[in-house]
């Protein structure tokens, strides 16, 4: 356990902001605040669905929000994998998988779980289990990212 390094309060308050953002998209615009879907729409990879201006504005907001926090509270830790292979391989699989599975941590994990959607419950259980298993396998094989 790493409770000394954990940030329960910041996690909870940051989570509340994320949930508030999802609530605004749902009640204001009638849609799901799913980042993978919005990215696909904003880039034109997906056609149909959320109108392009809305998806693009939402995606543009993500880095702006991170910048705001950096200005308000100081530097944000971003300990990325040092291996370019891990970044590229991880990115490829995340992109492919989120399209195939119709969502990621935001759409299925936050919006879908809170809706008690059976599809999202299964999706979230699947990617959580795969995430735990992947990190465990990498540890067992001595692979670092």
């Amino acid at each position, binding site marked *: *356990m790493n409770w000394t390094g954990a940030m329960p309060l910041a996690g909870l308050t940051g989570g509340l902001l*994320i949930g508030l953002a999802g609530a605004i998209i749902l009640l204001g615009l009638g849609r799901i605040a799913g980042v993978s879907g919005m990215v696909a729409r904003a880039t034109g990879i997906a056609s149909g669905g959320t109108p392009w201006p809305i998806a693009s504005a*939402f995606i543009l907001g993500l880095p702006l929000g*991170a910048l705001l926090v950096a200005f308000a509270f100081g530097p*944000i830790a971003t300990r990325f994998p040092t291996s370019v292979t891990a970044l590229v391989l991880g990115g490829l699989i995340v992109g492919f998988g989120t*399209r195939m599975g119709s969502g990621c941590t*935001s759409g299925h994990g936050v919006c*879908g779980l*809170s809706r008690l959607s059976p599809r999202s419950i299964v999706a979230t259980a699947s990617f959580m289990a795969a995430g735990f298993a992947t990190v465990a396998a990498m540890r067992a094989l001595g692979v670092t990212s």
Partner: protein
Amino acid sequence: MRRVLIALLAGVLFGAGLAHSGMSDPARVRAFLDLFGGAWDPTLAFVMVGAILPMAVAWRIRRRLDAPIADTSFVLPATTGITRSLIGGSVLFGIGWGIAGLCPGPAIADLVIAPVPAAIFVAAMLGGMILHRLLLAPPAKQPHLETPHV
């Protein structure tokens, strides 16, 4: 224009939440997924609880609305229909998530905080999305109009 501003506001709040909660730090996310490293970091679980609370309230409010506040109708995905694609895609996503410690939201938010590694990941992610479109080109995805609640 109003809808675009609402989407932008939501995006800013979402990005701020990711950065404030530590979820824009891939090592912290991997520390949550690392059950056997002796340094498990539960922060992500607190983020999930924090995010689900307002959303659960929003879903209850949604039942009372005929239409969203700033748009004409709710356009929501189906909740049922457990398919191979759903499970297979989600498992793949989880593998990539475990490898890099990144999912789409934090990767995009990090483009301004750690531009180089974030851009590499995001470029590969878009490549993966394009690859999916080329290989599995799903029959033109129509958004499901949700059936009215009973």
